[in-house]
């Protein structure tokens, strides 16, 4: 990969990026706790987790994985665009990323509402009558995908802020820390999904 080196004026971008990474570490451990709970209950109720996981739609899960992977690329490309002083292209790529995030959320909406139609949500009569292991699986499913979806929404807000800042020239080829850190956050959202997807949707 032949990359060119450009010089930027001195800002506190190194420190800013370090701060962002430290924040991402806390996010990692937040989801890590949930992954651990999942692992323990999966070991304890493997048969019930198997039955419950088979009810999830692997196609929607795969489609959402593709949306997030492509959006990760577009946000990384938007950083390249702003660094090479192409704000219009960067604006376009950030907008595409937000649209892909919206598609992800739309899928999630259909997925959840389909389960709600069958009264399959925490606290419902149907869910309370399920075997204990299946209640735990669906509880974890709503908690993990829900917390992840909140992160997608926060990412969309952050990227929208970038749209305005690129338009007003506050995010530019010499000041792109906000876009860089927002991209890092967006990649984390992608990273978490990379683990949620096989654990909940694929392994039955």
């Amino acid at each position, binding site marked *: *990969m*032949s*990359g*060119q*080196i*450009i*010089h*930027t*004026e*001195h800002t506190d971008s*190194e420190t800013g*990026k*370090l701060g962002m*990474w430290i924040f991402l*570490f806390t996010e*990692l*451990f937040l989801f*890590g706790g949930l*992954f*651990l709970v999942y*692992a*323990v209950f999966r*070991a304890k109720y493997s048969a019930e987790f198997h039955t419950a996981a088979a009810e999830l739609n*692997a196609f929607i899960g*795969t489609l959402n*994985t*593709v949306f997030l*992977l*492509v959006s*990760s*690329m577009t946000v*990384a*490309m938007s*950083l*390249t665009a702003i*660094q*090479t002083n192409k704000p219009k292209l960067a604006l376009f790529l950030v907008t595409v990323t937000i649209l892909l995030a919206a598609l992800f959320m739309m899928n999630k909406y259909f997925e959840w509402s389909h389960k709600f139609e069958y009264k399959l949500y925490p606290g419902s009569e149907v869910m309370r009558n399920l075997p204990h292991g299946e209640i735990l699986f669906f509880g974890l499913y709503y908690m993990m995908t829900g917390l992840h979806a909140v992160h997608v929404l926060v990412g969309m807000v952050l990227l929208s802020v970038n749209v305005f800042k690129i338009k007003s020239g506050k995010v530019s080829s010499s000041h792109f820390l906000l876009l860089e850190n927002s*991209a*890092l956050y967006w*990649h984390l959202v*992608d*990273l978490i999904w*990379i*683990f949620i*997807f*096989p*654990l909940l949707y*694929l*392994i*039955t």
Partner: protein
Amino acid sequence: MKQNETHISSYSSLATVLAILLLMTTFSVLVTGWHLGPFTVAAALLIACIKAATVIINFMHMKFESLFLKILVSGVFLLFALVIVITFIDYLLR
């Protein structure tokens, strides 16, 4: 120190990384359909770890970051893995 130098990833390299990630996703979907028993979980998680590393190294520019950040990030991920593995082993052996 190369603190004021920024590496710019090329569009083609980012597109290549996406192609690799999509290939790995296809592979993980196929692998879980093969009924490998207990190895299904291991295979799916292994692919997920490789995908995560690919995202961190390429999309998150870890390849071009300072040695300090490289050590910090690898260290935290190692700690994360240890916390998960040790707690899980502790549960299994109770």
